[in-house]
């Protein structure tokens, strides 16, 4: 159902992330070449991976309970998943190599290159989760179901600290995702999300 191994980092999305406005920004040839060269480098450094789990859920009293007993406590998320009978938990990462390279550019005071790699990494992670989402969406559509938007720990009153249990339950360590002491994911360019499923 899920295959994210061949993600291409979209150039336009990268420009947008860097603040490019089509109607106003005048990008000179040199800047364009340098951005594209570093985008090429970024493309070589990413290794997108995804891990997925799903289960039937019951939603009540501010708690989303999965059939195997795992619980998500957040009144905000409960509202958003109102009417859902199933939920997907997903985590994606593009790997550590791009961050390592970005950091070595920072150390070398190559801010421009660091900036492009960082932005390209963010766009790549976003692209990965978006493609995974669409793949789930296509799969569920066949069963006459629709998806909610995706929500991550830290959203609304879903505590960031829940990230730990969430990733554990999901088995995100299998694709190399771990948490630091501040509940931030490593590799940095990783995204986790909860997606609800309801009948159309």
């Amino acid at each position, binding site marked *: 159902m899920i295959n994210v191994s061949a993600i291409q980092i979209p150039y336009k999305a990268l420009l947008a992330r*860097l603040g490019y406005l089509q109607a106003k920004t005048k990008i000179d040839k040199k800047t364009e070449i*340098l951005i594209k060269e570093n985008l090429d480098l970024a493309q070589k450094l990413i290794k997108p991976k995804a891990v997925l*789990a799903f289960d039937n859920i019951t939603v009540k009293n501010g708690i989303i309970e999965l059939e195997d007993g795992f619980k998500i406590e957040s009144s905000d998320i409960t509202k958003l998943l109102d009417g859902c009978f199933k939920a997907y938990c997903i985590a994606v990462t593009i790997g550590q190599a791009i961050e390592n390279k970005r*950091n070595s550019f920072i150390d070398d005071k190559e801010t421009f290159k*660091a900036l492009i790699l*960082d932005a390209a990494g963010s766009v790549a992670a976003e692209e990965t989760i978006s493609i995974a989402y669409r793949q789930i969406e296509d799969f569920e559509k066949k069963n006459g179901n629709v998806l909610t938007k995706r929500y991550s720990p830290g959203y609304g009153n879903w505590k960031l600290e829940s990230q730990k249990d969430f990733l554990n339950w999901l088995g995100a360590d299998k694709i190399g995702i771990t948490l*630091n002491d501040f*509940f931030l994911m490593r590799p*940095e360019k990783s995204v986790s999300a909860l997606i609800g499923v309801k009948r159309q």
Partner: protein
Amino acid sequence: MKKEQFLELLKTKVLIMDGATGTQLQAKKYLEDVVIPEELNIKFPERILDIHSSYANAGSDIILANTFGANSIRLKHHGLLDKADDIIKNGIDLVRQAAAGKDVIAAGDISSIGEYIQPLGNLSFDEAYKAFSFQAKLLQKHNADIIVIETMTEIKELKAAILAARDNFEGAIIAQMTFSQDGTTVTGNDLQSFIAMAESLGVDALGLNCSIGSKDLAELAKILRKNTNLPISFKPNAGVPVLINRETIFPETKEEFIKSSLEAYSSGINMFGGCCGTTPEFIKALSSELKNKAPVKTDSVSKFFLSTRVKAIDINEIKRPIVIGERINPTNRKKLQEELLNGIFASVKDEARSQAESGANLLDVNMGVPQADEVALLSQAVSQIQEIAAVPLCIDSSNPKALEEAVKNCAGRPLINSVNGEQAKLDSILPIAKRYGAALIALTTDDDGIPKTTEGRLAIAKKILENADKYGVPRKNIIFDYLVLSASSSPEQVTETLNAIKKSKELWPECKILLGVSNISFGLPSRQTINSTFLKMAVEAGLDFAIINPHENWNISDSFAKNLLENKDKGAVKYMEAFSSYKKPSSAAEEKGLPFDKQLYFAVLRGNKESVPGIVNNIVLENKDPFKSVNDAVLEALNIVGEKFASKEYFLPQIIMSAEAAQTAFVIIKKSIKKEENSSGKIIMATVKGDMHDIGKNIVCAVLESYGFDVIDMGINVDSQDIINKAEEIKPLAIGLSALMTTTMPEMEIAVKMRDKSGIHTPIIIGGAAVTKKYADEIGADFYAKDAMDTAKYVKQLTKNK
């Protein structure tokens, strides 16, 4: 097992390899209580024996020992370096034990270090080579029959592994890479660049493993077969794994796997096995279909690849002349020499890009800068060019050390420029061509200079070939240059050169021919008319490669020039009549030299940091108050940059390019006038405690530095008390705090409170994705900066108020 025996075996029958080891270990929960799978060899050998035995019983002819990651870097990382000998010895022994009397080939397994080599990562080529050599030596010591290098995704790492195996191991070497559906590895190497690299380094077989499932991989195997005559191995995974509900699921069935393997067999593949997700059942089925079958014979192919990291060109397929761009050469180019002495490669990269755009098939790279360390410079140039241009390189030097280092660091198969008939040259350069499998330009000159006759040049060519034979360089890798002399001074020599080309093609059709063309027109007007006309004549004579300026017009064929070149225009009288009044059109109206401070202004405005050192050095030489000149020009430019950013004409990358140019100017001027007091003031920057985000803060640092401020960057995840302590100590103009997340923003409030308590009055600026002006006001921060330029604007204001 001797290499020849193995290769002989491959001629008679297909061989069955084993299936997955890693996923089998996972499935059987055999990875418990070990740090890495290789530790099993010494801690729980029975577990490895179990897996190997299951494959031996399933019919595997080749079993890969459990030495996948037993290179010195990885073993050291996991604290197992001192156990390396036992790990590898047991690894091989366990295959032999599992064979239990059956004919099983014990393959030493070598795979990726897990860290990229420069420029993708930080590992040097030599470090990687050393780590693989360590492993290959032990595989030799403990009698592995063959080595399989597998699951490689990066061409330089593959190169290091093959060289290490070849230098330290006597048996056959199979090199396998892992590809995506589009036929490239994750780092962008395509199938042909893989073949070019592996073949030129002398592997005995090559192949594909893991990747994308057997069906798609069988398609790639077919492409591989059409591009090489070497035996091929095929070891696909059971599809791309999906991690669902804490299970790793491989989507492919045994039946699908067998179907694709049979398809690969019919396209001429020689070795079959499986990778991740395959099991002994897969191998048993494979074995019952294919074991002992004769390989399917296919037509032999004739390829001559030169390659880069991402692609290869087949010289046999390219229309003549194959163009080698000559422009990356600092001879008689003072500005370029200065840049290179300062370690700046901007112009070199520009030349690489523009020549590739003008149609160069290869790029000559010469770094002969007087007083430079050519060994380092040539190697760096190769890396820099390969970062941006996907055109194979012709590495040009008279220094064998510089050549060897550059050829070693080249991600791909290059051309070496050059050797000649001098024995000392042959003895130093041919071994490099042999070791790296590079093609080699051979000039038909020797200690006595360029022979005047065709025969003289052919005699040197013959000597070069005899030496190539002696050093084991295949003759087809030799590309002769029969040398061009000026048609004005030696008109009779033109015919000798063209004759030598024709004769050479008759004598040694396997050897290709090259000329550096432009010398022909030396001393004559309208040089390009002669050059182009001559090139056409040389191509007709059989020329393959031309080293030329690809930006010039190569479509000229002129009858006056032809007469001259055919020595029918004695003294070039008619040619001179026709062309003496010719003036070369200037390529671009030369801009009148602007004053240096204006040049600096434009350099900062346009973000040309490479041109800044030269300009600032000139300002220092010429101006009475160089600091003021630099400061004024930079700030004036930054003001415009700021305006352009505000109007959204510039976006962040352009700001950073300008900031880097400005920073460069300040670093140089401060150093050259040795004045410390010229700083515009100190600013502390930090990402708050709990927040690990670096990049936004670094952008602000870069912009502030570009305005001449001294930025004290305290880093990420910085304790507020440390920040305030630092502020008390150094009394900065301001403190800049960055936080990217709502969860770490409260730390900003803590910092503000600590500052108030400490009694200092340093303004605190806050910024970051989730931070707002409202929040700044609420917590009592002095300023909310929406971006880096905003920060600079505020801080500049502070200096005025001071």
